[in-house]
């Protein structure tokens, strides 16, 4: 309990005058200033990394059987392209990645939302979710290939199984941690359960879901490679496996490099998506 303080300052502003801290930033997402320099630093870091790789490969190792240099890797990519295999491999792996990632993410969001909103389903599913999230599902890949064949769908299933669990966990966490006051606001204006979900919980979870997507990209790429290592007719992982059995290090490195670049590209695309969908969530997960 406070007693009115006698020493409180005497301010009598004109009506309508806005006092208090004025926003320090313009209503942009407030990151524009540093974006340029951070891109420069990132680019520089990549250039230095590649240069080091070239130097170590050329002068320290000096044997392309142990370590292909960036230059040899590039010519590996060129050889794969001209021989016609690379296009086909990219298409196959790309399809596996896209289907697996999209289906797995969508299903993960849906399941996460259901278990966040329904206690019984949460109790039923939680042991499986934590179990499968922690087990190296990759170990099951040979069985999945056995069940679903050598075509793309076995790999799609491997990717789904890798992508879905972190997304379930993230989405559930997002909805569960929604601030109660915000739900109350919607309810007090007559919002139904569905409206509370659509207008409050889903938005609150968006940064969590986007973080889940970012985790999913990496796991999906791993799923594609490993799935193809265990059995495929085409694809980048398949190509890597072939290159390895022929001791063709430049092509092996080429395959790996393409995956690495895809990881960078997809993660970057997701940060762009984040900036578009959730510019308000600068400091959220």
């Amino acid at each position: 309990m406070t007693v009115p303080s006698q020493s409180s300052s005497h301010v009598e502003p004109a009506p309508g005058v806005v006092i208090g801290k004025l926003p320090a930033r313009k209503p942009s997402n407030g990151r524009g200033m540093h974006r340029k320099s951070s891109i420069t630093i990132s680019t520089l870091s990549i250039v230095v990394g590649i240069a080091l790789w070239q130097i170590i490969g050329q002068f320290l190792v000096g044997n392309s059987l142990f370590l292909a240099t960036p230059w040899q890797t590039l010519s590996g990519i060129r050889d794969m392209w001209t021989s016609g295999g690379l296009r086909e491999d990219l298409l196959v792996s790309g399809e596996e990645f896209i289907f697996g990632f999209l289906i797995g993410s969508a299903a993960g969001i849906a399941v996460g939302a259901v278990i966040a909103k329904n206690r019984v389903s949460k109790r039923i599913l939680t042991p499986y979710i934590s179990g499968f999230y922690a087990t190296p599902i990759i170990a099951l890949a040979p069985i999945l290939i056995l069940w679903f064949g050598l075509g793309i769908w076995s790999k799609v299933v491997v990717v789904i199984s890798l992508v879905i669990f972190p997304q379930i966990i993230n989405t559930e966490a997002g909805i569960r941690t929604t601030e109660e006051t915000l739900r109350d606001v919607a309810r007090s204006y007559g919002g139904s359960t569905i409206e509370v979900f659509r207008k409050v919980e889903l938005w609150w979870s968006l940064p969590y879901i986007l973080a889940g997507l970012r985790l999913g990209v990496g796991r999906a790429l791993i799923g594609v490679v490993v799935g193809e290592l265990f059995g495929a007719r085409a694809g980048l992982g398949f190509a890597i496996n072939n290159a390895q059995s022929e001791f063709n290090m430049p092509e092996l490195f080429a395959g790996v490099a393409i995956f690495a670049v895809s990881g960078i590209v997809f993660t970057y695309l997701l940060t762009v998506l984040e900036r578009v969908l959730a510019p308000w969530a600068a400091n959220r997960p």
Partner: protein
Amino acid sequence: MRGVSVQSITKSFGDGLVLRDISFTAGAGEFVTIVGPSGCGKTTLLRIIDGLEEGDSGEVRIGDRLVSGPARECAFVFQADSLMPWRTVFDNAKLGMELRKMDIQTHKDRLKELLQLVGLGGFEKYYPRQLSGGMRQRVNLARALAVDPDVLLMDEPFAALDAQTREIMQTELLRIWSDQRKTVVFITHQLDEAVYLADRVLVMGRKPGVIADDITVPFSRPRELSLKRTGEFGQLVERIWGTIEGVIRETGGI
């Protein structure tokens, strides 16, 4: 415009009796503040009036209508940070209209005028994290006024603000209220705020919460902030403080 009538509301959580036989009325267009020590069930009472919670017994009426479920005639102004971080000032202000299925297009100009009225003209596209605490509470107020309620229920809306901003917001609230006349039930633990704003101050006791005193504030309107430094004002605050002190003693300390 309609008033609020609270009849014999009782409420317990578990085996703790929170509110016992609370009855009071706020006439149409009247500004009533409720003060009381922390834990006296002020917020629970306000939530029951809004229909966000239900009393165990007793009833709430807005005008003649018995409240059950979130009341359309009321708008609730929550404590700080009840804005949706993903919505701009404008979109936050129209949330209540959206949920009450009001046509945004026909009310768009009114909403803009409202934002102007609460001092947010030009800030429509800002996100809450770009605003100060005082400005966020202005958005909260605009969101509540936008649904054109009969009754404004305000739950310590200025508690999180610093002393200076709080005083400014008090005068601002009175200015806005004189423009958009509503029945107001305003909860606070600041006695000078309660007296400065209100036509009537209700003092609540606690454990369980009861209405311990009902004081009519004699000062004419419009009121200047300097009113707070007059002797009569001080005496009234002193009297309320006396009641609350008694309540706290009786129920065993803070």
